């Protein structure tokens, strides 16, 4: 059963969202595997969705959930394009590591 007035306050939800986003940011900046960097982007998008749902529940408004739906659709598109790029990359490189992509460096 879901109560009409939510029992979860807004502050802890936003804190959870910030912490999850920071974890995703650390993963994106720190990992070497490109696939895991893309997964870290998914974690960050999920964190944003948590805060959208929290605001939607707090303000009793549907629009936050609609925005979260659009975020999920864009995440699906991003996964398709990103993994296609990684597939094209792995044909020319030994692995899927950011250490293999050094052409712009020199």
């Amino acid at each position: 059963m879901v109560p009409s007035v939510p029992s979860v306050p807004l502050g802890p939800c936003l804190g959870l969202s910030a912490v999850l986003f920071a974890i995703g940011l650390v993963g994106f900046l720190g990992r070497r595997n490109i696939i895991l960097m893309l997964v870290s982007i998914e974690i960050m998008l999920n964190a944003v969705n948590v805060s959208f749902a929290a605001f939607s529940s707090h303000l009793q408004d549907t629009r936050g959930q609609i925005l979260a739906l659009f975020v999920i659709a864009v995440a699906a598109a991003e996964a398709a394009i990103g993994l296609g790029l990684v597939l094209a990359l792995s044909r020319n490189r030994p692995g899927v590591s950011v250490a293999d992509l050094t052409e712009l460096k020199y």
Partner: protein
Amino acid sequence: MGILAGQSAFYYLAAVSVASAILAITRRNPVHSMLWVLALFVHVAGIFLLLGAEFLAAVQVIVYAGAILVFYLFFLMLLDLPGETAGPRFGAHWPLGASAGLAFAALAWYAHDPGLVPAIPRVEPATTASPGSLRSIGMALFTQFALPFEITSLILLAAIVGAVVVAKRKNVP
């Protein structure tokens, strides 16, 4: 559901979400990372349910856990990276990344101002459905947000075509 039960469920879900996110970005084996991300997605769906967003929870499980994550797992098995578990997990610059993440979390914590968010509006007519119900979401999605909805379908079409074009071999006609 009582307030106390709801809050303890929320803190359980939040703790498991954070723990599985940390495990997901630190595991050496990418498949283990994916399974921890699956745990994260399911617990975030539980948080959506607790927040009264039933449709969003269903979409989270179906699209994120069901489609996107399975896509990633298929992809990992397609590429088959045997050397991945041997090399270092993080680049040499990982302290910079960690400090950026910590700085972001601290900034979000500092910038959280309760005065910015208006209190819960108490003008709830008894006739309107709850904001998380499929009816109210559908009404908003197909009237007020009809144009963004159509643009989303264009984005997905462009993603399909783009993925095929990018991943195609050059010598295939």
